[in-house]
């Protein structure tokens, strides 16, 4: 017989959408998320293009709906370890990593992390901000419970002593959960290409060369700088900001021959946000081909140019050189349309790295027994006709783990819903 339940792996927007659609369809959903909170990449963004909605503000209600929905069971800070069986009848072994905090007792009041003496860089803030060893990645985290990071914990027991709810349990053990499901939805998302692979751009060597995701955190009101866009080298307000497209994408050397599909658009968005923060800032976007395809984007780009005076230069810079004294950055580029080679100096350079498969994508593929494509993303059984089916019946995928399928949020949501439809079909057949 067919198990009436579904496993969704990955609590990003795509996985959330799939879960909600399935749950409201009356299907039992187990939503497994690796990190302490659901929300995924979208939670890290400041605002979304082209409507400039506050990203977490439109996402949070969906996250909370997930945690409240009677048909959804959240398994955060957990990983899928083993899968057996076949379509209609999978058995899944999930490892629940110890939070060292009782999810049922913790109220997320935050007293514990006020007292925790250990400060470590916060992954959620792309390590630009600090968190404690007992922490909640971000204020809107779901579930609203803290997590102890044992790596850095001194086991001083302070948190334990201050917690009125008596939720802290440093002796907690990993726990294995076995689930029976009829279908599986994989939505594990993407990672970012490490720009230090391209030495000429100096990422990692030059403090004021940052990635677009780092910029999102710097722009975000709840980010490490409280939404103040400043230079990491000296806290000064950058007046000249450059965006560089195709850092590691459209690049044969790293095997990322694809276009990441979203960078041109979010750069235009970020550029506009930067202008809103500092109206007198000069913003340049260096691009090879300006890929503003899809609803409203061409129009948005036009506004960025005419209304906000953002400069788009058709160039892929050769190298960036830092002035050791001022920490300003000289960009060598050729304006290919004007046919001139120039060196312009900027205060801040934002690299737009390729979106690449998660580092653990290959092992995950093994766990699920699904194939990956030549880039290392999960392979759809047929890119045109079965875009959300993997190569294994009963296992579906949505979101960016399928590769840059135009890649932005609405696409991830559509794919999430589409997988919900496919799952429903499978469960009906059984």
């Amino acid at each position: 017989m067919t198990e009436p339940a579904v496993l969704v792996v990955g609590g990003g927007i795509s996985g959330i959408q799939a879960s909600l659609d399935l749950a409201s369809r009356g299907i039992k959903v187990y939503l497994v998320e690796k990190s302490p909170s659901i929300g995924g990449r979208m939670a890290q963004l400041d605002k979304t293009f082209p409507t400039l909605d506050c990203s977490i503000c439109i996402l949070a209600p969906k996250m909370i709906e997930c945690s409240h929905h009677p048909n959804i069971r959240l398994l955060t800070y957990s990983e899928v370890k083993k899968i057996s069986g076949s379509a209609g009848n999978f058995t899944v072994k999930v490892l629940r990593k110890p939070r060292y905090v009782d999810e049922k007792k913790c109220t997320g009041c935050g007293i514990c992390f006020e007292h925790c003496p250990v400060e470590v860089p916060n992954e959620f803030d792309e390590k630009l901000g600090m968190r404690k060893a007992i922490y909640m990645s971000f204020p809107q985290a779901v579930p609203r419970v803290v997590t102890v990071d044992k790596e850095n914990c001194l086991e001083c027991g302070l948190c334990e002593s201050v917690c009125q709810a008596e939720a802290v349990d440093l002796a907690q053990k990993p726990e294995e959960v076995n689930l029976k499901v009829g279908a599986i939805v994989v939505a594990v998302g993407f990672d970012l290409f490490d720009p230090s692979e391209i030495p000429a751009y100096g990422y990692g060597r030059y403090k004021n060369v940052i990635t677009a995701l780092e910029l999102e955190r710097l722009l975000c009101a709840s980010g490490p700088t409280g939404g103040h866009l400043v230079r990491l080298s000296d806290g000064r307000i950058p007046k000249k900001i450059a965006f560089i497209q195709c850092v590691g994408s459209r690049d044969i050397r790293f095997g990322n021959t694809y276009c990441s599909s979203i960078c041109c658009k979010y750069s235009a968005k970020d550029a506009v946000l930067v202008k809103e923060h500092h109206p007198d800032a000069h913003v340049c976007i260096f691009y090879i081909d300006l890929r503003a395809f899809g609803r409203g984007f061409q129009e948005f780009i036009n506004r960025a140019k005419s209304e906000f005076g953002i400069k788009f230069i058709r160039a892929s810079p050769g190298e960036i050189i830092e002035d050791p004294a001022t920490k300003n950055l000289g960009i060598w580029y050729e304006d290919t349309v004007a046919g001139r080679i120039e060196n312009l100096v900027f205060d801040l350079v934002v690299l737009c790295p390729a979106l690449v498969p998660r580092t653990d994508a290959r092992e995950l593929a093994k766990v699920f027994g699904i194939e990956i494509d030549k880039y290392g993303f999960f392979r759809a059984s047929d890119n045109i006709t079965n875009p959300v089916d993997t190569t294994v019946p009963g296992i579906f995928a949505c979101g960016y783990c399928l590769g840059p399928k135009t890649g932005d949020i609405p696409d991830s949501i559509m794919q999430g819903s589409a997988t919900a439809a496919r799952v429903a079909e499978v469960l009906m057949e059984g």
Partner: protein
Amino acid sequence: MEEEPRIGVFICHCGVNIGGVVNVPEVVKYGKTLPNVAHAEDNLYTCSEAGIASIKEAIKAHNLNRVIVASCTPRTHEPLFRSACEEAGLNKYLFEMANIREQCSWVHPHEPKKATEKAKDIVRMAAARATWLQPLEEPELEIKDSALVIGAGIAGMTAALTLADQGFKVYLVEKEAEVGGNLLRLHKLYPTMQDTSEILDPTVKAVKKHKNIQLLTSTETSEVKGYVGNFKVTATKDGEEIPLEVGIIIVACGALNYEPPEGLYQYGVYDRIVTQLEMDELLREGKIGKPERVVMIQCVGARKGEIRALGLEGFPKSDTAQLLAKILKAKKEEGWPYCSKICCMNAIKNAILIKNQSPKTDVIILYGDVRVYKEYEDFYSKARDLEVRFVKHIEEATPEITKGTENKLIVTAYDALSGREMKLPCDWVVLSTPMRPRKGEVLLARMLKIPISPDGFLMEAHLKLRPVDTQMDGIFLAGVCSGPKDVSESIISAKAAAARASILMANKKMRTEALTSLVDEELCIGCGLCEEICPYGAHWIEEGKSKTVEALCRGCGACAAECPRRAITMRHYTDEQVLAQVKAALIPEEIEVG
């Protein structure tokens, strides 16, 4: 009023979004002083689980019977806070939201003092209204488990099949005699280069033999009445009217390929100037022969009327400078503002097909930007390997096409990257034209009461979060009627629409907003103005009195405003409620105590 109003006020910092400007504690203090306010507090993020929890606790602890959250916009957050109230046993219509972010902190970031005062005003107004709030029951609707899909292109058929496979009855209406839509005209599909029929035929076969699908070809959707769960649709097949009763509607009416007007790029003036779609057909029929050269021009009638990404400051020094003077005079051509997304790949596909047919042919693609997103980049490389030549031309200098000797066409264009004029004798000119919305779409949209977006395509409920929903419950969008998509994207959107639709049908019931109009039959004179004004057809006159169909009413209030006898009140926006709010705004000292 049966019981004393006991209002709880929750003021949100929204991180620094509000707290960074407005002095929230001060507003809380002020809130406590307002009449009927039994409790006031602030939260870092009221929408977080902690915030929700403290609302529930406060409702119990202070036995509140009204709740105000002063934070962001009801559009995204009201449902959340309402459900919080319900979970605490409070009717959700006793909740009131005050927007002190979009309407206050975000617009006055530099005037914290005034912003704080304004926030107080907003909260005071909310409290005044809350005092008059009434508990309301939401009407429950039956949802018929049958669907209407309008348009039998690849999206419509996919949506129909997805629903039918889940056991729902589907009426698939196609106004053409043949199903298949735009794919019927396509020869091959990128990037796989498989015959369109490989995908179309099995789908069509499946649709035709599926027991749950009733296919109606050469049929127009001539009338749509009713509302989510109970749409009463009239389909017209050669004069004969077919009544259909369905629970939901999926619109997949597709889009058209933009045909340039005669004369634009000499289209229709000279022979052998065709659109990509026409080239597709020519290639299928092997009618292009062995041309010496084919020139393709991108963005014909697309992305028009924009300032493009030319580093203008740079020009004075470059060769391109002289050209530019000439160029900027260039006439604006008619067209669509958006990028049609699929044309670059289509051009490359046809270029490759031409190269396969006659490798010696020189194929030149004049582009502004090569927008081969996602893995189509490899497709672009493949074309370059086959020696297809991509030339970025200066789009402002609309290429000119003239007749040359020995029956050649001559394209005159400007290479943007080496700044020179190019005269390209060629045998074929192919114009890459965008997808454009159907004209008939407008009528359909009006019938379905769904809005049309500025670019002419049907508008989704939320560009980001609800890409296949519409503002009308029970009506969904699939395929290119909501903007250009390629086949795989259309299929995804179709499956998504089906998924969203199936939720309603599977649940068989749904509740709708209680915010509807209420007619006082005593006062109503049956003049029928409300029936005329109502954009949703929720009003009509029966036995000389106006009737409201709650399920149709969207609570816009047009009728209430129009009614000469003030016989219509809006539930949840009664005159008392609104006037109390207005008073609170204008003469704070005279707030009525309910």
